[in-house]
């Protein structure tokens, strides 16, 4: 068993699950979406990106790309949240944008996990 594989697998899947936790719930109900969850989702996503750096294979490159997509979506969601909060716009449209951005990030994370599982299954060790 390779500790490095455990750690990276842990973070890849954690990024997806936390992202799902934030995304799950009515899109127009702010009470169902915790800001802490968004924060942790972003941090874990960043960590998993860094863990994917340095693999120069074709699959490694695609994994890194999906992770970067998730990062950008989450950063966009956080930015929108911050702006609406500080400009005191209480707008259900803006909130829906945050949730759908995180939904996009979730898709990217799911792709990345599927690829990761595929690679693991293919590996003979």
């Amino acid at each position, binding site marked *: 068993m390779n500790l490095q594989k455990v750690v990276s697998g842990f973070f890849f899947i954690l990024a997806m699950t936390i992202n799902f936790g934030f995304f799950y719930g009515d899109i127009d109900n702010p009470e169902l979406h915790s*800001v*802490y969850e968004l*924060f*942790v989702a972003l*941090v874990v996503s*960043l*960590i998993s990106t*860094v*863990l994917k*750096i*340095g693999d*120069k294979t074709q699959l490694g490159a695609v994994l890194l790309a999906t992770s970067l997509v998730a990062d950008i979506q989450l950063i966009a969601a*956080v930015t929108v949240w*911050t702006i609406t*909060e*500080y400009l005191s716009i209480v707008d259900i449209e803006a909130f829906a944008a945050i949730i759908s951005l995180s939904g996009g990030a979730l898709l990217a994370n799911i792709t990345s996990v599927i690829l990761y599982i595929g690679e693991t299954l293919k590996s003979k060790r």
Partner: protein
Amino acid sequence: MSDNALWIILQKLRTPLLVIIVTYSIAILGMVLIPGMDDNGNVYHLTFFDAFYFVSYMASTIGFGEAPYTFTYEQRLWVSVCIYITVVGWFYGIGALVSAVTDKTLKFEMMRSKFRKRVQSIKDDFVIILGYTYVNAEIIKKLHAVNMEVVLIDTNEEKINHFLLEDFSHDVPLMVGNALLADTLSDAGILQSNCKAIVSLFKNEEKNLRISILTRFLNPKVKVVAKSTFSDITKSIIDTDIAKAINPFEIFAKRVDIALQSPHVLILENWIYENSDLMNQAMFLPKGKYIVCGYGRFGKLLQEKFEKHNLEAIFIDEKRLASREMIESGRFIRANPDDKEVLLEAGIEEAVGLIIGTQNDIDNLSIMITARKLNPEIYIIARENTMQEVSIFQAANIDWVFMFEKILINKVSLSLSKPLKNRFLKLILNKDEEWAAKLVKLLRNRIGANPKLMTLKISEEESYAIYHELLEGNEVSIDVLSHSLSDWQKNNAVVPLLIHRKNEEILLPKNRMLQVDDRILFACDEYSKEEIELIASNIYEFYYALCGKEKESPILKKIFG
């Protein structure tokens, strides 16, 4: 992969990036969770943005103060923890970045990709030269003189730095690398179609062989010029079909051979190498007994030549041993040649020539002085080993000084930059004294002491007029090119030396018909050179040189009928 450098940076920064992300998120989360107090004493929590803002300037030690309200002691307690974890993480990241940028592998990768780009941008023909030595530097200068580009590889970084100080007329892409690796050679552009040759003159001749084999498989169109003095390596090098083995010992031994039987050939050779003009007196080497100091590869080659001419030769060497037969017959003495007794034993007093070929300059000079004292009449041929601007050998009144480095420089640069001249030289080396003497006389009488050499190719670019005349099916004799443009019945100072075509080589062509793609070598003076070029490319001048009449312009002819 050309972006190796970027990957190296990213890989080195993985851990620092992780440290920064983790420390930041711990600090931010703590700042958000710990309750603070605003100006009016109400409890409040920092938002994530507030916390991110604060931690960002805290971690980078910018420190704008406590915001948005003064912190409570609970918050300050947490901040003091954060300072240590984030600031350390931040500095670790910067330190890692700096060390990654100054990293040797990274530098190498950056240099490599720069080198590759520069090689790829070369448009003209170029030559790859392996190793920066005095010999190679001289070859580079000679190649630059005929506008050939050069790419240089050396394993030693310090040598490359020396190279940067040298003054070359063209830009030379250079790289530190091991030339014995196929990767390095492909970086140097061996796969490019405009790579014409690779020069491998390593002292370790196995390397030269390996380069020849590598090149054979990487790109068989590239010519390899390799130094080789051992016969088995030479054979293997020649077996690659694309490589040419250059043996300076052999070249010089051949010169001694020529000097014994046909010194005029030697005069021609020196003139072709631009070492001297044709006015030198042709001197036969004296026939008689020779003494040779040094019985290595060079000595053995000389022995063959002396045996061919039935001359007696006695070899002296301290370190090497000869066959028993040679020792018993007194043709080999194992001793230090720099000794009066030894030279006397070898019979210096009745010898006519002395060839000093050891690898030590001071020894060579010392032997020379001793020998001159014992026999003032003796003809001395001495080897000079180190290239120096002020040569003691030139001042030492030696009849014939030779240097293997110079031979290499001349030979390699001639065969790369002036292939036609090289061809001509190869052909005349086998000619006899009578033939050479006649040619020297002809050149001297018709052109002068130091004729120029020029080449002309029958092609659309170089000789438009002749090319089109041939395409129309008319025959053109080579003699047309030597006609004078002021009076076509007179001849300019031109001697055509060689016509080289696909499967034929014609020495001293006379009244020969030209063909498309012929390459011609002329000896001529500066003035005739211009006229040859004019006749070859200008249809009016060509017509005049051909039949002595002015050609009418085809357009005017149409108009005036």
